[in-house]
């Protein structure tokens, strides 16, 4: 069942088009950076972007930071919002359910497929970012301290070995993927509420936009720690030395709570609803 869903998703041209669009912006940014050599001013622009001019191996993180606020959530919302609602709209849902695919099983398979999409999308952005970064920027060798490799500097001003950078980048990628799982859970839940994939996607985006807006509002600070987008940018905390685990663990638990609640709600709704599409 899960394999079936994966085949469906990854054989779909739209899935790959989404991932391709996702990579367009970081590549464009890289080209512009190389052509103009104008790094963003300190404190402005996405994290890591000012650092990539001197060390291209950080570009995967810069690329993630570029797509994280908008493009990545939209991509995940589109795919997740389509998961059940798309089948309902196409009419294939009734045939899947009378096959019978089992409503809970179908939901789990969709969930796994969407999660895998999240992971693949994040990984592709990171890999493309790495290729772009190492071919277009310097992969800065650190004189003497590290032989035959490249290292970098943490936010805190300590030197990181290439091994450190790789580990922390991988953890950062993992964290971004987990952050997107919350988006996916919203998408899956809304997808069980409506027969319109667009409606489900819009629902997710409405939640994310409200969350981002409330986060900037001082009056909303009492609920700020519970906003789904609150800890998204905490993946940069892996690049502090020592690693600042506080927001990372909070981000992970918050996503776990959202994913848990939304999936239970999606399950409760989907297994008891009348399929009339």
């Amino acid at each position, binding site marked *: 069942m899960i394999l079936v869903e994966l085949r469906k998703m990854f054989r779909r041209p739209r899935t790959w088009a989404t991932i391709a669009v996702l990579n367009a912006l970081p590549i464009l940014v890289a080209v512009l950076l190389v052509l103009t050599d104008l790094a963003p001013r*300190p*404190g*402005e*622009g*996405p*994290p890591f972007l*000012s650092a990539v001019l*001197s060390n291209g191996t950080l570009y995967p993180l810069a690329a993630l930071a570029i797509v994280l606020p908008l493009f990545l959530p939209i991509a995940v919302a589109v795919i997740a919002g389509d998961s059940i609602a798309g089948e309902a709209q196409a009419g294939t849902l009734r045939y899947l359910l009378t096959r019978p695919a089992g409503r809970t099983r179908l939901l789990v398979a969709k969930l796994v497929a969407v999660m895998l999409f999240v992971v693949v999308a994040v990984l592709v952005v990171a890999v493309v970012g790495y290729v772009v970064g190492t071919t277009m920027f310097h992969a*800065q060798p*650190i*004189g003497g*301290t590290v032989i035959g490799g490249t290292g970098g*500097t943490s*936010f*805190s*001003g*300590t*030197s990181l070995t290439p091994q450190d950078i790789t580990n922390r980048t991988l953890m950062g990628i993992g964290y971004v993927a987990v952050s997107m799982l919350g988006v996916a859970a919203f998408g899956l839940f809304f997808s069980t509420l409506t027969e319109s994939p667009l409606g489900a996607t819009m629902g997710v985006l409405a939640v994310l936009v409200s969350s981002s807006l409330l986060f900037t509002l001082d009056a909303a600070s009492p609920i700020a720690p519970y906003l789904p987008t609150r800890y998204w*940018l905490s993946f*940069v905390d892996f690049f*502090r030395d*020592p690693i*600042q685990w*506080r927001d990372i663990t909070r981000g992970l638990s918050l996503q776990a*709570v959202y994913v*848990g*609640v939304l999936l*239970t*709600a999606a*399950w*409760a*709704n989907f*297994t*008891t609803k009348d399929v009339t599409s």
Partner: protein
Amino acid sequence: MRWSVVGVLVVLLASLPALIGALPVSDAAVSAHDLRAAVLASRTVAFSGYAESAGGLALPVTDQLTSVADLFSDRTTMRVWWRGPTDNRVDVVTATGETGTHTGTGGSWTWEYERATATRVAATPLALPAPPDLLPTALGRRLLSEATDAELTRIGARRVAGRDALGLRLTPAEKASSVRRVDVWVDRASGLPLQVQVLGTEGSRTALDTRFLDLDLATPSARTTAFSPPPGAAVRVGKEAEVVLEAGRRIEPVPLPATLVGLPRRHLDGVPAAIGLYGRGVTLLTVAPLPERLSDGLYDSLVQSPAAIVDDTSVRVAAGPVGLMLVEPPDEDPYILTGTVTLDALAAAAARLPGLGSAR
């Protein structure tokens, strides 16, 4: 049935923060006097933690001092590793980088990630306000350092950073003070101030609230607090504090009254004689002559403030408990009064000042 599972789950998770917040806090019968003594003795207590300060002070100041103004008006989050007064590190954490201040015996390193710059500053008796000064520990000790027992009362305990913190309230005795009160919550075990709230006489908003969100009393490793500039970083020597002091020294001393609005004059090491410092504890007033080129820009930005009170020769404005008054007498050089006193007290003080001369 299935929806009720969802309902129970949501209610459970939503009430979790409230349940944790409702955990009983144990108070202790410690007198205000002893609590203040414990705070002042806590300088050498090692800890590490995560603190957040939120200032409600919107200072209408010129471009030169924006970093100081941001400090008091923004939300600042800090990580601290404290091995002692001369071995510690405070990082101001932002979404895209951080600025770390590593203090050692001979001075401090400031590392700015986004500029890839390390700045060495030698230890000086007087320094401009910096983020580390906003830590509850530093601020709490500073505000309580000159408090008398008569000004202190005990208030109830509360939970700060998951620890039992005993409340201590400082109500300034001076009439001129613009600070209504300062509440400090002190860790029962270590004497470290965990939260400091400053309330002004105007309005009910907290002017400054700084608190720990996490605190760990284990001694942090020396590797964490040490600093050496990373390869590729720009290294420079910071002289900002000296520049300010040097400017002050070039001002010709003028006779200043021994008391102003009931506040006695005081002297601090390193402060030029031309600058008058008055007051005690949390009620402080500074009088300083100002070069004309600085005063014009300051005047223009002050009068634009909606709360500014403008008369023939002066403008005064309050930002929370901090008052600022710029006087430009017709035939004499301008001067500035600022401090934690009320606007009326500022005006009264200005009226008592003789003509001030400035550096030429």
